[in-house]
Every structure is written in structure tokens, then in C-alpha cells.
């Protein structure tokens, strides 16, 4: 029986394992150093906040793995021998494989800041990071102030987490506005306001210079670049992005760049070795996507695709329309298609923006100047129906069409106040149009003739 070994029990590896099991009878082994069972990484924040216990983050009951004949090995893979097709594992006996899937995810970026390895300086990615955070910042007596470095999705999550324990937070964002290497200015501006509304000391356009230790080698303070201001703190959160977790592959002969280099079939340069998820780096770009995509959804999609290849139906990885979501404190964010921020935006891309006069809700639609085809949408505080918007993107609908049918795309709970008519009148005013909003239609939404 062919033995498939998967290194990493995150969403990518586990999805691959589940789908291989559905399609075949192969022997499957998952090796993980991080945790005994698969858990949802994105949910770790809720454990610290007290919304959930750690076991709630595990999507499958413990008996699931045995029932589906997926062997779990706890240990850290230190060496991959691709000639003998074997793994050397710290904490478990060596394993031989017939096919190897590398799905080891990421690790937090460190940019060589002085003091970045002190006690009390940490990232937030793994279960171990969460446990460490409980030690470093159990409450606001032990941790009188935290400084977070890096204005991305993990940074704002860490800020939210610490605020639930009333720990004062200084949030250093290198960019002139929060996450505005991804978000257009007006979207980003609203999030800035919301961060400050939560009593987080947001410092825009500010970088870290140095982290200072106390006499015990624990963090005591940080100095900022430029002003040289010193801020006393007991925790420094390094959240300036992540990088593929592939150090253990250095001498394996597997071609590495930033991540494990893969072709469109998720194959590496070595036969029978594949890489998926955060740690995979595409050799050729796929549309507007980045070569390394550290996103939950892409990890899952690569797992779904690779299972086909492993089970005899060699399949290219061809993800559909880009989508993503996040929650910035109390504001939900969804995006479908591409809405580029101003610096990366093409000349031909025009943005329509609407923002609620009082509440923290807004929407930005990107469309092509000439054809008026919709390129993408960002919504904040408004939920959209994935299926409907995905369909509109495939059908290359115009912005007029989208405006007219906006109610079909709403996914807000029943009885919610809807803002479609406000949005459409702003659109009409901005672009001199006279679009009439259509009523919501279940037949159109569910594609029933």
C-alpha cells in the first residue's frame, strides 16, 4: 500500500489527507510538532480572549482520525532524505514515505531588530506562541503595556486580544495607514478610526528601532526609529508578516526560494515530493496572486487539488476568483476579486466608495474604466453572498449591473437595516448614472429557472 506522509497538520495538510482518504485506500500519516490534533489556527485568538477553550478550536472529534485511518505522529521533522525517501523525526521513530507532502506553514518574520530574541518578545502564529502569550501577558499587572510591531491582520488580532484583558497597547504601523498596502486609503482610514476607538495607541508611519532588555534579559522598553522615543513595555509582539517555515529542508535537495518551489501541479523539483499551503512558493504567478499566499483558504484549496494528483488524476492548481475575509475588532471585512490600494492600482482601475455617515460600514468597488467590468469589491460591516459575487465576476458583470442587483448579493442577517439604496444613490451621484435598484430575487440568487 502506498504510504503518503504529510508534514504539518494545518488546514492544507489535513485537507489533503481527508481528500486522499475519500479517494483512496492509501496509508496516510500526518507528522506534527505543534499539536496532537488539527486545530483552527485562526481561532487561537479566541482562546486567549476566553470565547473558546482550546479543544473548541479542533474541528474534528478525537476519534475522527482513527476512524478515517489517518495516522498521527507527534514529532519534529529534522531531516528529509529524498534519495532513501525517509524522514528523521525528533521525538518519534524515522518514517519512510512513498509520497511526501510538505505543509509546514509559516513562522513570524523577524527583521533583525536589536533585541528581537529577548524574553517577552514573541510572534503569534503557533499554539506554542499562544501558550507563551499566556505567560508573557496573563493580565495587566504582569504586562503593563504591550508594543505591537507590524500593521497587518495578526497585529490587529493581537491588539484586540490584549485589550480584552485591559492591557494598554501601542500599535506600531510602518505604513502611513493601517494595512494600506492592501486596502485603499478610505477603507484603511476607517479601520484607523476604529482601532483608536478601542483605545489602542495607534502609531502610523512609525517603525521599531530597538528593543531593550532589563537586568534579567526580559524586554523593558522599545525605541522608535526617527523620533527615538522610548516606550516602556513588558511585551513586544512581532507581527510584521510571516515567512515559510522551511529551514529543516535546507540540505534536502528540494529547491527552495522564499518557500518550497512548486510548479502548477504543486510538485517540487524532487519526484514524489509536493508542497502546499503557506510554505509553497509558486514558480509562475497565478493571475494577480502572490507567489507565496499565507491564507487559510488557499491552503485548503491546494489540499483539495493535490489530493486529486496523489490519487492518480494529475491536476493543475487553478484557484478561482480571489476572496478573503477578516475581522478588525468589531468590523467584519470581506473581499471578492481584486481591489488594489492606490500605489498598486492601474490607471484603468476606478474605485467607487460609499461610507455610512455614522456607523463603521463602508464598501469599495473596483471596476475597469473602459469596459466598466467589476474587478472586485471590499465590504466592511456588510456581509456579501460569496456565490453571487463569484458568479458576477465570472460573468464579467458591469458595475451598473452590480449596482442594480446589489440586494441579491446581501448576506446580512434577516431584519438588518440595508444600505443598498444609499449606496446606489451615491453611485448615481458620483458617476452621473440613474440606476434603479432591483428587488431581492430568490430565483436569481439560487439560480432557479
Amino acid at each position: 500500500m502506498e504510504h503518503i506522509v504529510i508534514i504539518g497538520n494545518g488546514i492544507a495538510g489535513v485537507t489533503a489527507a481527508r481528500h486522499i482518504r475519500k479517494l483512496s485506500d492509501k496509508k496516510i500519516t500526518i507528522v506534527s510538532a505543534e499539536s496532537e490534533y488539527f486545530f483552527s489556527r485562526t481561532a487561537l485568538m479566541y482562546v486567549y480572549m476566553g470565547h473558546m477553550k482550546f479543544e473548541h478550536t479542533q474541528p474534528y472529534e478525537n476519534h475522527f482520525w482513527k476512524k478515517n485511518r489517518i495516522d498521527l505522529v507527534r514529532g519534529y521533522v529534522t531531516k528529509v532524505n529524498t534519495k532513501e525517501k525517509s524522514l528523521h523525526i525528533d521525538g518519534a521513530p524515522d518514517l519512510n514515505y512513498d509520497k511526501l507532502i510538505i505543509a509546514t506553514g509559516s513562522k513570524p518574520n523577524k527583521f533583525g531588530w536589536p533585541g528581537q530574541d529577548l524574553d517577552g518578545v514573541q510572534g503569534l502564529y503557533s499554539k506554542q506562541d499562544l501558550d507563551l502569550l499566556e505567560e508573557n501577558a496573563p493580565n495587566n499587572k504582569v504586562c503593563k503595556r504591550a508594543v505591537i510591531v507590524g500593521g497587518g491582520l495578526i497585529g490587529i488580532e493581537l491588539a484586540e486580544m490584549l485589550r480584552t484583558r485591559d492591557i494598554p497597547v501601542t500599535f506600531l504601523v510602518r505604513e502611513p495607514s493601517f494595512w494600506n498596502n492592501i486596502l485603499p486609503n478610505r477603507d484603511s482610514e476607517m479601520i484607523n478610526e476604529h482601532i483608536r476607538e478601542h483605545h489602542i495607541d495607534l502609531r502610523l508611519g512609525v517603525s521599531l528601532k530597538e528593543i531593550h532588555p532589563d537586568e534579567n534579559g526580559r524586554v523593558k522598553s522599545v525605541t522608535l526609529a526617527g523620533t527615538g522615543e522610548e516606550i516602556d513595555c513588558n511585551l513586544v509582539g512581532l507581527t510584521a508578516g510571516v515567512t515559510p517555515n522551511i529551514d529543516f529542508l535546507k540540505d534536502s535537495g528540494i529547491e527552495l526560494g522564499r518557500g518550497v518551489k512548486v510548479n502548477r501541479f504543486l510538485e517540487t523539483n524532487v519526484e514524489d515530493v509536493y508542497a502546499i499551503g503557506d510554505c509553497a512558493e509558486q514558480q509562475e504567478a497565478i493571475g494577480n496572486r502572490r507567489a507565496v499566499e499565507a491564507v487559510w483558504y488557499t491552503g485548503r484549496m491546494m489540499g483539495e487539488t493535490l489530493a486529486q494528483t496523489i490519487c492518480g488524476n494529475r491536476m493543475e492548481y487553478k484557484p478561482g476568483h480571489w476572496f478573503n475575509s477578516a475581522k478588525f475588532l468589531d468590523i467584519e471585512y470581506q473581499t471578492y476579486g481584486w481591489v488594489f490600494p492606490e500605489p498598486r492600482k492601474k490607471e484603468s482601475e476606478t474605485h467607487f466608495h460609499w461610507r455610512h455617515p455614522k456607523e463603521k460600514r463602508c464598501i469599495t468597488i473596483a471596476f475597469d474604466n473602459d469596459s466598466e467590468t467589476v474587478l472586485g469589491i471590499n465590504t466592511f460591516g456588510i456581509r456579501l453572498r460569496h456565490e453571487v459575487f463569484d458568479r458576477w465576476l465570472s460573468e464579467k458583470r458591469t458595475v451598473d449591473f452590480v449596482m442594480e442587483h446589489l440586494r441579491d448579493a446581501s448576506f446580512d442577517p434577516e431584519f438588518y437595516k440595508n444600505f443598498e439604496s444609499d449606496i446606489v444613490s451615491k453611485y448615481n451621484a458620483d458617476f452621473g448614472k440613474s440606476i434603479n435598484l432591483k428587488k431581492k430575487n430568490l430565483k436569481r440568487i439560487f439560480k432557479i429557472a
Partner: protein
Amino acid sequence: MSTYNKSMALTGEPPRSLSIGQKIAVLLGLSGLGILLLAVFNTSFPNKTLWLTLSLSAIGIGTIWFSWDAYSQKIPGIKNDGVWFRSISSRGLWGWVAGLALTGFYIVLYFYPEYLGLVSDGENKGVIGLFDPLSKFLNGNPASQWFVYGTLYTVAILAFGIKFIWKYRHNRYERLRTWSVMFFQTAFAFIIPELMARLNGHKILDGGSLPYYDLKNIWPLNYYNFEGYRIKMFLSSGEIGFAFLIFGILSIFVITPILTYKYGKRWYCSWVCGCGGLAETAGDSFRQLSDKSTFAWKVERWVVHSVVVFVTLMTTAVIYSYLGTDTSKYWLTKSSFLIGVAVLLTLVFGWAMIFKRDQLQKDAKYGAIGYFVIIIALIGFHFFSGEGEVFLFKSGTLRKSYSFLIGSIFSGVIGTGFYPIFGSRVWCRFGCPMAAILGFQQKLFSRFRITTNGGQCISCGNCSTYCEMGIDVRAYAQKGENIVRASCVGCGICSAVCPRGVLKLENGPLEGRIDSNQVLLGNDVDLMNLVNKK
């Protein structure tokens, strides 16, 4: 490993402690309960009206003040910080203390009301005596233990309802739903039946007396609705009484199926029902304690459907016991009634087995066949054995056992007493025959579903954790499958706590209602077509 300790604070968010306002609010609420407790031990209060008013106001205002202090200063949004750190809401010491206290209260209420001061032939004493003025004001009679219970129940739903509304003030579905349960409890369960009691003996009832009737309390939840004494009272009360009787029958056979088809069982379970009302308001702090395992689900299916069989048998036997045998006196006789029951059950069974069998799990089919055979055999037994006792048991014995086991122990002592241990919907999930019947229809014949939003699920588990019915919502959402479960009461909390906007409760076409996918939206279209072909 985690280093936090569970706080002993009742409601604080470790390491946050209660604010001064909240401490005073707790003190105020406890002093209201203290007055009731003093009354239990027969402290005589000079002015009962005044002290009862003080007590209930203190409880109500204490709760509301506490909630105001907790939520008013915060930005609208999900307020679950520290839920699993607090002793009361995470099965810690205070959870067990509260569970034991509530359980004890129910045991006294159901089985030893004399300890609460109930005196059947004379002036009430104790805490029941304290409620006499209010009871006399509303219905003209002295209070009973049920009046005391009903009043406290209503105060709890109103005070904790306001708390819930503040907690979810960003969510209009939750606000409206909570106003609805508060209204139905206050008007239908509490005030209207009490006022109706004043009409007893009045000429508009032809001098008859109506039974105590909470109109929204539908058979089989209201398992005694068609008992002999109630039928007599309905029929003694002229056209109004007759109309009530007809309404009771229409409620379960006509109104319920129509509304459940259109909106799912939520129209009842989380918008109208009193048991649901208490669970959603006072029980909200305990919703996360429900068991999500597949084992618990299996137990749930067997237990709740067994209760349906039990209540059907019991009610059939009770109605049978008071019907006559002479067709010339009244068209409905013992035999025609039993045949009617058999026909109805056969129709429902046949419909499910023929048209919906692909939606039933294997054990559901076995269970349904088994129970169907038993009931029909028992009814057949009646006809072959001549005029004997139906169902081998005396109807009185069935009635008493049901009332004790299900009506008191299950719905009260376990169902509510164990809120802080098993979560707020233990009764609704494992015991309520009404919920089971509505659920059966919701699963097989309803427009309601919780739609999963394409591929947006991140498997975080908030939805499953906060599902009071113990549904593993995530198991469906992460597969891109809509949630169509018999037990879902449509409280909407899964959708509210979802950080990525994945879940939406909605009523839509039956076609493609479940829509299960192996590969989720967002991936390669060819792959999706390949794998998802049905």
C-alpha cells in the same frame, strides 16, 4: 500551558473585576432574592404588597443595572470576552452552586410546595403568601406555587431579556426576537390567563369555567391540554370555550405545520415559546455548555423521539379513556378515535418513508419503523382483545408517569435546574416533544435553512461553541454545506458570532436546500465540477 486561573468572581472578566456599579447591582439583586428567602422562612412582612414590590423591583433593577454597566460603555459587537474564564459560565464552582440551588428550587416547587408556604385550606404562608396580593389583584384568588413560579419566570425573562438586547444591540434579528419572547411570556403566559380566570362563572362563558390556558402553549408541550377535565371545562364555557378547544387542535395540526414550513421551527422555539424564552434570556450565559459530540447527538435523537412516542401514547390513552362507545350519542367514540390516530400516524409514517427516506439516517429509519410497529400493534391489540385497557396500561398510570418523569423531572429539574451544567436548552434538545415534532418537519419539509457562505469558513468553532442546541455547526459550514438540522431553534447566535460572515438564517426554496459540496467555492471550477457532480 495556560497559566490563567478560573476566577471565583461571579461575573467578572478575569483579570477584570466588577466595577463598583456592578457590585452594587449584584447586592441589590441579591437583596431582592433575600426578601423572598426570608419569606420562605416565614418572616412576616407587615405590608406584603410593598415588600413584594420591593423584592421584584430589586431583582429586576439589579439585573438591568448590572447589564447596563457591563455593555453600555462598550462598542456594539460580540461580547463573549472571558466567558470560559468565569466560574459561573464555565462549569466552575459557582456554576455547580447555581445548578444545585436551581435544582433544589425545582424539587421543592414540584414536590414540596408546602415548604414554600402553600396552604390548601386557609391563608397561604411563606413566600407564596407574599404573592397573595398580586395574585388577588390579577385573578381574584390567592396565590399558588405556580403563580409564584410564573411571576418569577416572567421577571427573569424581562430582566435578562433587556440584558440580552443590550448585549446584542448591533443585531436586529436578536433584538426583535427577544422583544417577541418577552411579549409572549408577559402577555400570553402570564397576564392573559390570569385575567381570564376572572371571567370564570361569568355569563359570557355561560356560567362555566375555562381551564388555565396559555394559548401559545401547544400540545404536546402542553401535554394535558386534551385531558377530560379540561375538555369538560372548555365545553362548559359556551362558544368561547369551544373556540379555545378548536384553537388548541388547530394549533398543532394546522397553524404549526404552516408556520414551520414557511419559517422553520424558530417561529415557535426561539420567538414564542416560554421554555425557549427563558433559555434565550436567563440561560444565555450558559449556551456554550451544551455537548457538541456526535455521541450526544445520538442520545438526543433517541431520547427526544421516545418522548414523542410516550406523549402520543399517553394522550391517546387519556382521550380514549373518557370517550364513549355509542355512535348514536356522539360521533367520536373510542373505536373511531383509535382508528383516526392509526390513520394519521400511518400517513405521516408513510409520507416520510416513501418520499423522504433518502434524508433519514439509518438509525432514524429503524427507530421510526420500530416505534410505528409498536404503536400500531398496541392499537390493534385493543381491537383484538375486546374492550380492555388500551395500551396495556391504565391511562391514569401513563398520565401520572408522564407528568412526573417528563413534565416535572425532565422539563423542570433537569431542563432548567441544570442550565449551568449542561447548557440552557437541555429540555428543548433532549426532552421537548413539541420541539421534536417541529424538528421532524423542519428537517423534511420546510423552507428554513442556515446558509453557508461559499468557501468563507475558517473552521474557528465559534458557531459550534455557542450553539445552545449542541449542533456542530462548523462541521457543516467548513464543508460548504447548509445547516438543515431538526434541532435548530433558529436563535441566530451562530450567525452573530461568526467572525467571517459565513452563516445566514433564511427561508428559501426547497430545491438545493442542503447543497453539500466536497470542494468549496473559490477553487478551480473544473475541479469543483468534477468532484461535486451529483
